[in-house]
């Protein structure tokens, strides 16, 4: 069994290239957009642009890499065996959580404590005191609660994810497990996986997207928003896992991963694209039907304002394309098609996050220009760098996992 994996030079080149482009974009933004100046709606939107783009990217990519740990958590709790052959891939991706979590925290804290009311209106105390709605939300939308919650959430993601990863790595040196040892090891995995899922449910499943993204449109609320965000990040997370599996398979790694596993990952991408649409539509239709002024404001700018094109593009990229293209079995088993769809889905949901953040911050002056893509390149580069590092340092197959046999003979 070949367990040492050397990253190909082209991968390193791409990583350095993307980080380079990203750093240039960041520096350009820092110098040209005067991020330290006070922003304001309609007036100096360039500094708003800088922070809005950073917020969008840091939250999106953090949720995407964290979705990998969610995948490990649920498959562990469901006593799933099929994913064991490819489990090191989501493990490697989730190892980026502390890095991106740290970056996201830095950006979120800078926005909140820097008093950027152009991003989060509720950080402006004077505004809140004269606003009946925001006054009612003061107990939840305030810098102290926001900061404590964000720090605890990201810390718990990091520490529980780390525990699950190290449990997996420990098994490599443990040798073949007999029934008792294996049983104890699985139960330990279940314990930490359930803790992670509880934390995940209370953060990504509810409060984190409310605080980080929904509070941009502070007057507006939707109880479905967190699920919608979760679906977005999970389907992108599965696409990222698919990309890495294809990449490693093409380099002769992951010997036990067959077409059957790839097919299942493809099913996840298909199913959760439809799930995302279900939530997208449920949120939209209820607001459209009820037609209440405090709710429709969110969609007015998106459907009838300057975001109309993006709004429908979002639906085409994330629903119509996956539905029609990923429906066939042969497509889910085809590396080229799956890679294409994974890239399309990740891009689609990045656009989705863009249209969540921009209308509330930039109003009708939003941009989708090289700066936005440059910052995205920075985050992609960081993910590639950390994941590549993890993949080249650790064995790619958890060879002593008690369920490995089940995964090897997986057949759908």
């Amino acid at each position, binding site marked *: 069994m070949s367990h040492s994996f050397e990253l190909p030079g082209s991968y390193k080149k791409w990583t350095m290239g993307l980080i380079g482009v990203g750093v240039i974009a960041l520096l350009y933004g820092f110098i040209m957009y005067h991020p330290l100046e006070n922003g304001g709606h309609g007036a100096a939107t360039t500094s708003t642009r800088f922070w809005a783009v950073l917020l969008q990217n840091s939250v999106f990519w953090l949720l995407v890499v964290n979705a990998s740990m969610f995948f490990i958590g649920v498959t562990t709790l469901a006593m799933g065996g099929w994913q064991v052959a490819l489990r090191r891939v989501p493990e490697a991706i989730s190892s980026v959580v502390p890095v991106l979590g740290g970056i996201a925290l830095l950006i979120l804290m800078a926005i909140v404590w820097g008093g950027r009311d152009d991003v989060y209106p509720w950080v402006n105390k004077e505004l809140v005191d004269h606003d009946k709605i925001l006054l009612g939300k003061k107990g939840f939308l305030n810098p102290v609660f926001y900061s404590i919650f964000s720090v605890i959430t990201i810390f718990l993601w990091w520490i529980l994810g780390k525990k699950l990863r190290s449990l997996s790595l420990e098994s490599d040196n443990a040798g073949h497990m007999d029934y008792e040892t294996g049983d104890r090891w699985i139960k330990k995995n279940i314990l930490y996986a359930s803790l992670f899922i509880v934390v995940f449910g209370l953060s990504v499943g509810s409060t984190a997207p409310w605080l980080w993204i929904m509070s941009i449109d502070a007057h507006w609320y939707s109880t479905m928003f967190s699920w919608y965000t979760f679906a977005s990040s999970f389907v992108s997370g599965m696409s990222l896992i698919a990309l890495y599996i294809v990449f490693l398979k093409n380099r002769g790694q992951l010997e036990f991963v067959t077409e059957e596993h790839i097919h299942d990952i493809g099913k996840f991408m298909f199913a959760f694209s439809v799930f995302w649409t279900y939530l997208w*539509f449920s949120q939209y239709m209820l607001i459209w*039907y009820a037609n209440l002024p405090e709710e429709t404001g969110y969609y007015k700018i998106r459907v009838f304002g300057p975001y109309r094109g993006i709004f429908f593009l979002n639906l085409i990229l994330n629903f119509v394309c996956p539905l029609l293209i990923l*429906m066939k079995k042969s497509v889910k088993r085809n590396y080229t098609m799956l890679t294409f769809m994974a890239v399309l889905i990740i891009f689609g949901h990045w656009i989705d996050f863009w249209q969540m953040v921009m209308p509330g911050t930039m109003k009708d002056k939003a941009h989708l220009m090289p700066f936005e893509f440059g910052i995205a390149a920075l985050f992609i580069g960081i993910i590639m760098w950390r994941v590549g590092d993890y993949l080249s340092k650790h064995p790619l197959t958890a060879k002593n996992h008690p369920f490995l046999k089940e995964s090897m003979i997986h057949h759908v």
Partner: protein
Amino acid sequence: MAGGIKKFVVGCFDDEAVLFPAVKKVRRAGYKIHDVYTPFPVHGLDHAMGLRETSLHTAGFIYGITGTTTALSCIGWIFTKDWPLNIGGKPHFALPAWIPITFELTVLFAAVGMVLTFCYLCQLSPFIKKHHFHPRATDDLFVMAIECTDKTNDAEVQDFLQAAGAKEINVQHAETGWWLGRYDREQKLYRETEVGY
């Protein structure tokens, strides 16, 4: 009864591990497997038997889009042309409100259509008596039926099944189809390089 009466050599196996190699041997020898009846779904058996992929899902897709079209055109015509109503001040062409119904009809058409198609493909219908090659095929035996032609020497086939590990072997005559001609499973010829079990 379009299929007519045919002769079958029936071999019963009591072990999956014997059944798979036996299927391979029978196909390699050039006999035509009519079907293998099992008490439970056996993973990979369709592959080992060289059955082609079912086209049930393609049928399901067509039924599904038929449902979508039916729903959209029907509601669209009723609410914009035939009987426009003012419902809460919404436009007559109120697409979001129609989506749930469209979805339901898509699912309904696909589900009902696929069940009926499945019944047709498997030649199942009420009041039709199907020939059972062995009653224990629903309990604990894997029953393989080999179709005989005029030229088949059934004694030879019986010996062959014996050697392949069958526990119980006999010759039976049975009806093979009942409706609009027979749905005959297409089989690929056996190849040594074939992957599978």
